[in-house]
């Protein structure tokens, strides 16, 4: 039993231990352990990434042009983000400039993911934290219809529509086979929505499940499939042909029309279903504007995204700004350089890896990885049956990345706060609108509620940007700018003997970076630091806690054995653990003895 003071938090692990393993409705495997005091307040939080796949070990010695496909398989939820970071890292290393039209198509594919991923997160991974499915049974369809029509012009809102749903729902519940809804925390005192709002949300849960699959068809058109569309070093694999013979085998007018229609439908759904639902639900949970702050009001990071000018990564070009906020100083936006060894470093003091000196962090180009699974003496249980983990020792497969030595939060909220602090109206105005509608002060944004709200606003932003990129694409085609790939450096014979590059990607979940070293046309070293590594990472050598652990601190729990509050805050980050738990071992072969420069 000990008390640790860090970053203004008092970590006290003396209270009752609550273990949630696995956390549901996320990507990958995550375990959360908390201590709660007598009043049910969380006094200590421990985030354990419980899987490791060793992808960068596998990448060593392979063709850099293939790396996108391997890294894309890091995550099938935020599919494509790793592929994009990967092709950018290879292009950076080899000095390849991609054509403008390829840049637009990449932006369009990436914005498509933002819209779809955020939508799926809100309705299918997060909504059940706020929406009580069982309570929806008590709803009056007529009143539900009135509620729906009062917040949006979305056409599926008649009393009959909701009555049919209520009947189906009742039959479903009465069958006793509740499927994915079984054992939910229904009836928990912090479910605050009236039955009608619950019924409406369930209706939209189902509609969104149908609709999300439409959005991704844009990735299918340009990348051939989804999940895991195809990408290409030097551009995009799809060619454009709107005039000549063989156009059926390329991006032609029919394909473009399909893209255009999907974009319009996406804007329609997000602006008329997602955003109204978000605001309606949020209005019942304003108290969550004071819960789950964690690092949100102090340390935030964004690599920026959507270069409007091909091959230009400066804030002049990035539609979503790059920058970092430290110590809550919103007036001072730090510049971010992925190649600066002093800025981005990874620590492993509490991760299941070994460094020669674990008080030092390493920049990804020079990372060392030696997996080292070892439990602390205070662990309850055994090596293969962990009941309670000992966070004073190593306790996670996730490393602890730090920006200028500080843990930071990444994700939609980080991007919105940075955009807001920069005074960018595209980010400031929607935030002000939400604050006004919910009638809450600005600090309420630094919270679980703020994270969820920022994600919704961003989905809408991304959907409108899809339209913008579509317009640019059509203008390019009209002007005859059809090139989609630069093949000058396709052949490995044209490459330098040694090269290194960094590829950024601001993924839906936050800042993602890939670092590559190429030697003799093969990958000599590959390293990724992904959004969930930043957020879910364990403590560092100074016991500084990461975003997940910080955000859970001081959260009041109504019924600790029903960890609804933990789920709400953790889900507000949209965890992606398959991404987070990875490792690089430049010497590859012998994992036990990896030594890296």
């Amino acid at each position, binding site marked *: 039993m000990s008390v640790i003071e860090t970053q203004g938090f008092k970590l006290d692990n003396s209270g009752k231990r609550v273990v949630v393993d*696995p956390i549901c409705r996320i990507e990958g495997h995550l375990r959360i352990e908390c201590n709660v005091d007598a009043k049910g307040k969380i006094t200590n939080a421990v985030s354990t990434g419980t*899987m490791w796949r060793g992808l960068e070990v596998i990448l060593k010695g392979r*063709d850099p042009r293939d790396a996108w496909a391997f890294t894309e398989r890091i995550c099938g939820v935020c599919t494509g983000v790793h592929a994009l970071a990967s092709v950018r890292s290879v292009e950076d290393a080899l000095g390849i400039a991609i054509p403008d039209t390829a840049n637009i198509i990449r932006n369009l594919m990436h914005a498509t993911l933002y819209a779809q991923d955020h939508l799926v997160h809100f309705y299918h991974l997060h909504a059940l934290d706020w929406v009580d*499915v069982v309570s929806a049974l008590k709803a009056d369809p007529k009143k539900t219809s009135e509620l729906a029509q009062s917040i949006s012009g979305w056409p599926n809102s008649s009393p009959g529509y909701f009555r049919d749903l209520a009947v189906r729902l009742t039959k479903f519940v009465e069958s006793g086979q509740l499927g994915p809804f079984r054992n939910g925390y229904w009836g928990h005192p912090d479910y605050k929505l009236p039955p009608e709002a619950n019924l409406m949300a369930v209706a939209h849960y189902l509609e969104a499940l149908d609709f999300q699959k439409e959005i991704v068809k844009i990735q299918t058109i340009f990348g051939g*499939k989804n999940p895991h569309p195809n990408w290409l070093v030097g551009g995009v*694999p799809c060619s454009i042909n709107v005039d000549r013979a063989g*156009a059926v085998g390329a991006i032609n007018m029919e394909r473009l029309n399909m893209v255009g229609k999907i974009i319009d439908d996406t804007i329609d759904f997000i602006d008329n279903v997602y955003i109204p639902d978000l605001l309606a639900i949020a209005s019942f949970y304003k108290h969550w504007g004071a819960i789950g702050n964690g690092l949100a009001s102090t340390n935030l990071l964004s690599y920026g995204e959507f270069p409007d000018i091909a091959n230009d990564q400066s804030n002049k070009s990035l539609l979503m700004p790059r920058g970092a906020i430290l110590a809550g100083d919103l007036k001072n936006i730090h510049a971010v350089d992925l190649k600066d060894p002093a800025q981005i470093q990874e620590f492993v003091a509490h991760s299941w890896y070994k460094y020669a000196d674990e008080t030092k962090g390493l920049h990804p180009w020079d990372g060392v990885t030696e997996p080292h*699974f070892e439990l602390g003496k205070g662990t309850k249980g055994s090596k293969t049956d962990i009941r309670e983990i000992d966070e004073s020792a190593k306790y996670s497969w996730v490393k602890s990345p730090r920006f200028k030595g500080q843990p930071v939060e990444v994700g939609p909220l980080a991007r919105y706060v940075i955009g807001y602090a920069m005074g960018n109206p595209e980010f400031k105005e929607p935030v002000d609108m939400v604050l006004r509608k919910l009638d809450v002060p600005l600090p309420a944004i630094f919270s679980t509620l703020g994270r969820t709200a920022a994600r919704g606003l961003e989905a809408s932003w991304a959907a409108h940007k899809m339209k913008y990129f579509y317009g640019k694409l059509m203008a390019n085609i009209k002007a005859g700018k059809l090139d989609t790939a630069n093949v000058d450096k396709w052949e490995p014979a044209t490459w330098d003997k040694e090269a290194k590059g960094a590829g950024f990607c601001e993924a839906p979940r936050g800042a993602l970076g890939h670092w590559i070293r190429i030697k003799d046309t093969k990958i000599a070293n590959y390293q990724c630091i992904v959004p969930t590594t930043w957020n879910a990472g364990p403590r560092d050598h100074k016991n500084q806690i990461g975003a997940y652990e910080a955000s859970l601190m001081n959260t009041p729990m109504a019924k600790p054995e029903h960890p609804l509050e933990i789920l709400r805050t953790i889900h507000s980050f949209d965890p992606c653990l398959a991404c987070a738990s990875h490792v690089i071992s430049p010497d590859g072969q012998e994992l036990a003895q990896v030594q890296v420069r």
Partner: protein
Amino acid sequence: MSDTFYDVLRRQGISRRSFLKFCSLTTASLGLSPTVAPQIAHALETKPRTPVIWIEGLECTCCSESFIRSAHPLAKDAVLSLLSLDYHMTLAAAAGEQLHENALHTIEKYKGNYILAIEGNPPLNEDGMYCIYYGKPFVEAVKHYAKDAKAVIAWGSCASWGCVQAAKPNPTNAVPIDKVITDKPIIKVPGCPPIAEVMSAIVTYVLTFDRLPELDRQGRPKMFYSQRIHDKCYRRPHFDAGQFVEKWDDEGARAGLCLYKMGCKGPTTYNACSTTRWNEGVSFPIQSGHGCIGCSEDGFWDKGSFYDRLTTIPAFGIEANADKVGAVAAGVVGAAVVAHAAVTAIKKASEKGSGAKVEEK
């Protein structure tokens, strides 16, 4: 939403009359008395939805994501009406203890009657702790849940073959599930991920006909995995004509020629991409200009670059393929032959010089 088989058929536009006809035909085909038909109809009308436990090991969730892309049936209907998705980490409302209890409940209540769907695979190194599940190795959950399952579905290339984490050098020793489940029928549905409609078709086949689909020797349903992408590729005429994309975005690429020279693995990949296509038939990789990378094939990560036609043979150096190895070796053999011939000629000449003694020996 608690629909029986009958409700689903009705919603799909099948009349009560047709339904009853289906029941009598089923009766006849089973060789039963016609009086049994009403019983079968009753059974289908009231049969509870088949419980499915869907677990995830080392994976990326692309299989689950693909499954919810299904257009026919809609994922919504599959999940809520056709089957009972009692355990699914990515969709379940419950977490931790409560989620665990859901699995135990289904195993207990539907012993021998539930389907276990596995996405991803178990690592065996480090006592299996590269994937931890309830504080224990994931491989234990696989064995535990499989014990009382009626059948097992191996979703995707991870569960079927090992996929990316099992690519060389496979640091975690991730293995396909048939290495740890040896006493249950396993349907392998490979692909990274499998096509959404293929996934839902296999589930609905099992539930509708109450039997496993016919499988090939490698455990894959024949209906989707017995032909190569190449066999049904719409660009096949260009292959036969000898018309290829030579460089990315060249004239050939814009005219939709064959991607064979760009390393397309369609000719060696068994999947339904060129027929069923992806995302409600919108496209598939070749149609969108990139070759197939062979993601439904065993060990496709270790067959050389995705952009090489011929597989790299690492044992012979970094850029070797069969032709390079063969030509170099042929050169060596040729040189040896020439050297041997030269020595023979010299010997022969010296023998002649020393007279005809040898001949007389």
